[in-house]
Structure formats: C-alpha cells, structure tokens
C-alpha cells in the first residue's frame, strides 16, 4: 500500500504493508531512528510522536492510519538553526536523561503537555507522564526539566 504524510514539515511517502507500524515506517523507511521502541506493547511511551498535534504511541498506530497526517518526531524538535529547543535544553541542563532511551518520548510528551498547558504544576506533569516509563528511573530530574522549561517565557509562544 502507498502511504504519504508530512513528517517534520517535509513530505514523506513510501510503500508499506497494512501491518507496518508507524514507528517502523519512521525508523526503517525514513531512517528517523530517534523514535524508540521500548516495549512494542503500548506501555512505555518511548515511541511517542505527535500526529496532527496530539501525542500518540507510534508502536500502536498503523503507518496507513497516518495517511495525510502531520507527524512530528524528536528529529523535528530542534530549532531551525540546529540548536536545542527549550525543552531539550532543559533536559540537558537538569540532567533529565541518563541512558537517554526514554528521552525522545519524554520530550515529545512534555511538548504536548506544554502546548495545552504552558504552566503546569508538578502534579500535572507527573500525571501527564503516566504513559512514559524511564528504565533509569530518572523521573525527578525529568519533572524538574519540564518545570524549568515551563518557566521559560518563550515556551508559551511556541
């Protein structure tokens, strides 16, 4: 089956099987390997990308379901000049990553949260990250990073 969508602002298309998952299309066909597969069973959130502006687990969406959709992955998060986005920079500044495996999903979830609610409190952040598991258990600094990003004035404008 043919599939085409917009990925990080650029048109992307390819041939897939019905059963091809969005995450495999992104990683294997488009070589965007920043989106990770931690579990493949909808539990861990390492594969979170935005589909038409909403966070989804790319391991639980078929590539053909993304036909015509706007997809944003971790590769599309940096600023146009290549510098880190506010959220990414906050993760670096606050040691919000250890091995980094969960980080793409954490950053994409954080970005989805701050888009809806630019100034969440700690409880809201923890609730929102319910579906993102960090095997290194670095939650405390992940929450700190997101809180710090939310205090950056430019985040509300994004």
């Amino acid at each position: 089956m043919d599939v085409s969508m917009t990925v990080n602002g650029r048109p992307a298309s390819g041939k897939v099987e019905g059963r091809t998952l969005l995450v495999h299309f992104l990683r294997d066909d488009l070589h965007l390997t920043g989106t990770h597969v931690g579990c493949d069973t909808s539990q861990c959130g390492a594969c979170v990308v935005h589909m038409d502006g909403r966070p989804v687990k790319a391991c639980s969406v078929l590539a053909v379901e993304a036909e015509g959709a706007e997809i944003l992955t971790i590769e599309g998060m940096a600023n146009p000049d290549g510098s880190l986005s506010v959220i990414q920079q906050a993760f670096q500044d606050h040691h919000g990553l250890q091995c980094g495996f969960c980080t793409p999903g954490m950053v994409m979830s954080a970005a989805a949260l701050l888009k809806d609610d630019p100034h969440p409190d700690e409880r809201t952040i923890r609730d929102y990250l319910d579906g993102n598991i960090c095997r290194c258990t670095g939650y405390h600094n992940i929450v700190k990073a997101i809180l710090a990003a939310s205090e950056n004035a430019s985040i509300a404008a994004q």
Partner: protein
Amino acid sequence: MHDFDFVRPQTVSDAVRALATPDAQALSGGQTLLPAMKVRLAAPAVLVSLMHIPDMVFVRADGDVLRVGGATTHAQVAREAAGAYPALASLAARIGDPAVRSRGTIGGSLANNDPSACYPAGVLASNATIVTDRREIGADDFFQGMFTTALEEGEIVVEVRFPIPDAARYEKFIQPASRFPLTAAFVARHSGGARVAITGASESGVFRWHEAEVALTSDFAVQALDGLAVDADGMIADLHGSSAYRAHLAGVMTRRAVAAIV
C-alpha cells in the same frame, strides 16, 4: 502480526458494507485491537477504519442529552464534554495516558467491554443508549458479561446518547501498572433515582449495585449506604487483589463518589 487489507470508508453505510466481507473487523483507535493482533489473538483479513467517518466524530449537547459519536476519542470527550457533563469528561480524561486518549474511542471501548474499562461504568450509570448502524440498545441490555455485548457480527457503535444526570461522579482506584481501574464506581443522581455502576470488580463485567441504588434513591447521602456491602462472591481475584478486596473497594469508591456529589 499477520498482514491484512486496510480500508477507510467515509460513511457508516460503506463501513457496514466493508465489514460484511469475510474476516473483516472494525478498527478504531487500535489501542486494544493492535496489541491483540501483535500477539495473534486476532488476525482479521480486512481492517475497516472507523476514524474517518465524520458522522461518528462529535460531542454535542442536545437539551438534557449528551450525544457522542462512536469514533470520538477519549481526549475529545475530555475536552468537549466538560461543560455539559463534567463527570463523563472527567472519566474520559483519566483513561490510560495522554497518548492512549489521543487514539482510543468510546465505540471501541464499549464494543470491547473489558471488565476493567471505564466507559462501561459511565454508560450504565447514566442509563445511556447505544445507537448502532441498525438499532438502539439500552445500557442495561448492552453489557452481557466480560468482553461480551449485545452487538452482532459487523454491527457498529455509531453514537452514544447520555441522559445528563443532575449530578454524577466517577471514582477510579487506579491499578498503576496498567492504568486501568483496579475497581471504580460511577454514581449518577437522576431525577428518577440514583444509579450506581461498578467496573473492574466482577467476573461478569460491569454491573449495577442495586441495593446501593435503592438506598441512595430514598436518601442521597453517604450514611444511606451504612451496612451495605458488595458480595465478594463472583468478584475477580488476581495478583492485584482478592475478591474480598475488590468488593470492599467497590463500596469505598461508591461512598467517595456520593460524598463528592453531596
């Protein structure tokens, strides 16, 4: 996962036609079906996506009834039902996690009738009507036991109509690993009486706690439930909790819901 054909009809009638082909199955958010297909518990030959049928995606208050399209996501219900039916919006806002809510739908949840799912409790306590492509089914007739509903082969949940209660509350005791309820209660105070639905507890799936309904209908207060308890017989027992624990939780969640309403 076995391979399959994929179609995305834009009308209910086209979807019904596509579902009439051998081994065809409806796909909505895929948050239940795709994991089942990965482990080959399901292997449809054709998947019929219901997510692109505009007539199945809406949240609309119509007098004292809230109408929700069958393919409406939990996230959309959480946002758009908050004004008309806040308790239902709050239920939707607590299903799974944000990514699950972006995809999962009310129709998929009801058709699946997981014994621990949230929506069945809201639908049963609200006395909602499930509108399919061919008929209307009252909530009391729709749920027929764990993973079993009144739906026929190829029948689609097109819409759910919720009579909006005077007050309602969903109390969910979360099972933190799955994020489903371990046990949850939806209490609705209707002008005609109270309805109490319990999910996550019974081996027969969602059920009404009739004794509590009678007590609350004559006196809508926490004390009205004094001495009442859900029978542990027939409750689910697994590594997360014994049947006695779940029966106890059903009582606690119901009391919390009533306390939050009054």
